C-alpha cells in the first residue's frame, strides 16, 4: 500500500516536472544533541546550516526542509528516528550522524528503503569496504584514515617508540589499529581506558615510566580534555609530544584544554588556517554567526551541504531520479574548504592529509596551525574490498 502511494506520487511528479521546483528536498538530520557529546550534533548542524546559507538556502534551486532529531548517541534511538523519518516524513537523504555505531544501526534500513545516506562525519569501515552501496556516500573521512596518516608521518620522521592510548570501545580500537597499520615501529605500550574516564593520573604515571618517544592518543570530547590537562600537569607536555587525529585536539575541545594542548600535533584534512578562498569565507562566516572558531566537524558539514547543492544542480534538481542523483554525486565538483576533494569508487573521499600543530592564535586562543602535507590524495584502506553494485 505504502509503496504504491509512493509510486503513484513519483509518477505524478514525473508527469508534472514543474512540481519539482516547489516541492522541498527533505533531509533527515540525525545527530547527537544531548548528553556529554551533545555538542557534536550542534557543531555539525551549525556547519551544515551555514553551508546551506552559503548556497542561498536552496539545494539545486529547490527549497530544503531539514528535519532534525537527537539520537542521544544510542544506536537503537537512531534506528527508530531513521524509520520514522523514512516512513512518515518521507525524507530523501539522511545525514548528520556522528557516531559510527549509530550509522551501522541505521544504514541498512535507510538504504533498503531507497533513500540516500550522505555522511558528514561517521565513517565506519564496513560501508567503505564490503558493504559499500550505490546510495551510501561519505564526504567526510573513513575512520582509519587520520590515524593512518599520523602513522606515516611518525614512521617517516624517525620516531621509534610510540605509546598508544584510547578509550575501550570500537572506535578507540579502530583508531589505534589504523595507526599501527602504517606506523610499523615499536609500540611502547597500548592502553585502553574506560569510556568516559575522568582521571588518568595512574595511566600517565605508567606512561612516563615506559619512556616512549611519542604518545599517539585518541580521546574525543571531555575525555580528551581530562587527559590533555592532566598530561600537561604531570610535566610531560614538553618532554614527550602528544600526537593524535584532529578529533583529539580540535575546536570542540581546545577551548577547554587551553594552554595544556599547545605544542601537540594532529593529523587532519582541514584546519582553521587553510588558505583557500572557500575556507577563509567559511571560518569568517562561522565565527561571525556563532562566535567561535569552527572545528573540522563543522567544516565537513559545511562541505556536505555545498556538495549536495552542486550535485542537485548537476542533476537538474531532480533528486527523485535516483540514478541521476547518484551519478551527479559520484562526479560532483564543488569548492571544498579542504581544497582537494573527490570521491573514490567506494563513495568515500580521496583527499590530502596534513600535519598541524596546536599553537596560540592572534587572540591567544589555542588553534590548529597547518605545518606540512603528509599524504596527497589519501584513499582509505577498504576501497579494494568494495564491489560497487550498479545504480538502482
Amino acid at each position, binding site marked *: 500500500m505504502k509503496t504504491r502511494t509512493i509510486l503513484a506520487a513519483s509518477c505524478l511528479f514525473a508527469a508534472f516536472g514543474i512540481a519539482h521546483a516547489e516541492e522541498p528536498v527533505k533531509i533527515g538530520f540525525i545527530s547527537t544533541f544531548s*548528553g556529554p557529546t551533545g555538542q557534536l550534533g550542534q557543531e555539525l548542524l551549525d556547519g551544515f546550516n551555514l553551508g546551506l546559507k552559503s548556497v542561498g538556502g536552496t539545494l539545486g534551486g529547490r527549497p530544503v526542509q531539514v528535519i532534525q532529531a537527537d539520537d542521544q548517541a544510542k544506536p537503537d534511538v537512531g534506528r527508530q528516528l531513521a524509520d520514522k523519518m523514512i516512513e512518515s516524513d518521507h525524507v530523501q537523504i539522511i545525514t548528520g550522524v556522528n557516531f559510527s555505531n549509530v550509522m551501522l544501526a541505521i544504514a541498512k534500513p535507510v538504504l533498503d528503503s531507497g533513500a540516500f545516506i550522505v555522511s558528514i562525519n561517521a565513517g565506519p569501515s564496513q560501508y567503505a569496504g564490503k558493504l559499500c552501496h550505490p546510495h551510501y556516500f561519505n564526504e567526510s573521512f573513513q575512520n582509519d584514515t587520520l590515524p593512518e596518516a599520523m602513522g606515516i608521518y611518525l614512521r617517516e620522521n624517525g620516531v621509534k617508540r610510540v605509546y598508544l592510548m584510547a578509550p575501550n570501545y570500537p572506535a578507540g580500537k579502530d583508531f589505534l589499529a589504523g595507526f599501527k597499520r602504517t606506523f610499523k615501529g615499536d609500540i611502547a605500550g597500548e592502553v585502553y*581506558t574506560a569510556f568516559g574516564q575522568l582521571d588518568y*593520573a595512574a595511566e600517565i604515571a605508567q606512561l612516563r615510566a615506559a619512556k616512549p618517544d611519542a604518545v599517539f592518543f585518541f580521546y574525543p570530547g571531555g575525555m580528551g580534555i581530562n587527559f590533555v590537562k592532566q598530561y600537561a600537569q*604531570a610535566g610531560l607536555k614538553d618532554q614527550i609530544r602528544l600526537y593524535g587525529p584532529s578529533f583529539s585536539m580540535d575546536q570542540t575541545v581546545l577551548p577547554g584544554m587551553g594552554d595544556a594542548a599547545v605544542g601537540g600535533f594532529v593529523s587532519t584534512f582541514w584546519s582553521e588556517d587553510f588558505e583557500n578562498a572557500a575556507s577563509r569565507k567559511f571560518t569568517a562566516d562561522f565565527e561571525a554567526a556563532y562566535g567561535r572558531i569552527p572545528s573540522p566537524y563543522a567544516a565537513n558539514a559545511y562541505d556536505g551541504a555545498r556538495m549536495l547543492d552542486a550535485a542537485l544542480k548537476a542533476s537538474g534538481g531532480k533528486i527523485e531520479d535516483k540514478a541521476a542523483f547518484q551519478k551527479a554525486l559520484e562526479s560532483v565538483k564543488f569548492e571544498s574548504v579542504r581544497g582537494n576533494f573527490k570521491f573514490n569508487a567506494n563513495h568515500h573521499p580521496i583527499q590530502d592529509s596534513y600535519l598541524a600543530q596546536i599553537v596560540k592564535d592572534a587572540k591567544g586562543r589555542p588553534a590548529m596551525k597547518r605545518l606540512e602535507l603528509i599524504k596527497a590524495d589519501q584513499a582509505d584502506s577498504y576501497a579494494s574490498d568494495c564491489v560497487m553494485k550498479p545504480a538502482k
Partner: protein
Amino acid sequence: MNSLLLIEQSLNGLQLGVQLFLMAAGLTLVFGIMNLINLTHGSLFMIGAFVAAAVLARSGSFVLALVVAVPATALAGALLEAVVLRRFYHRGHLDQVLVTFGLILVINELVRMVWGAVPVPMALPPLLSGAVNVLGVSYPSFRLAILVVGVIVALALYFVVAHTRIGMWVRAGASNRAMASAMGVNVELIFLLVFAAGAALAGLAGIMAGPISAVQVGMGEPILILALVVTVIGGIGSIKGAFIASLLIGVVDTFGRVLLPPALGSMIIFMMMAAILAFRPRGLFPVHG
C-alpha cells in the same frame, strides 16, 4: 612496578579517593539524614565548577573563585531543597530518583543555555601549577592540594558531626528522625542546613576538579556514580564510612586500572562493592540502628 612508581600510584589513588570523598560526604549525609536519594548532587558539582571557571576567567583569582563558587553552590542547593526536594522526603525512593533525574536534565540544559555546549577553560592557579617532591616522586602540586583540602574537610566534618551540638542534632536526625523532632530539634532547619552544606561540598569538589578535568555540561554524572558506590560501601549516612570507602575505592581503582586488563580494571570497584555488600549489606559503617 618499582618503588617510586608504587609511591606515585599510591598518591594517585589517595588523591582520587579524597576527591571522591568531597562528593560522597554530602551525598551520604543527605541520603542518611533525610532518606533522600539526591541525584542532583552531580549537578551541584557541575554548578560549582562552572561558577568558579566564570569567576576565574573574569578575575584571574582562584581564591576569589573559591570564595564565590562555594556559597553560590550552597545557595543553589538550598533553593533546590526549599523549592522542590522538600516535598519528596516522604515519598518513595523511586519518586525521588525520578524527580532528581529530571532535575539533572533541566539543570544540564540551563547550564548549556548560559555557558554554551563547548567546554569552558579553567586553568590551574599559578601558585599550584608546578610539581613538588614527595618521597622522591615529582608530584603535581595541585593534586597534592586536593589531597590536603580533602583531609582538612574530612577532619572538620568529623569534628562538627562528633563534637558539636549541631552535629549531635544531625546524628539524632540520622538515627531517628521522629524522635529527634519530638525532642525539640528543628528538623526542617537542620535538613536545609545539611542540604546546603552537602551542596557546598559538592561545589568544592567541582571547583577542585575543574583545573584537572573538562568543565562541560554533564560533567557531574560520571563522578556521581562513583560517589553513590562510595556511599553504599561506606554505610549510608556515615562520614567515617564515606572517608574510608573513598580511599579504598581510589586506591583499588587506581591499581586495578594499572595492573588488570582494561575490561576487568574498569569493573573492579563494582565487583568490590558486590563483595562487601554480600558480607555487610548495610555497608562498612552502618548508621541506622
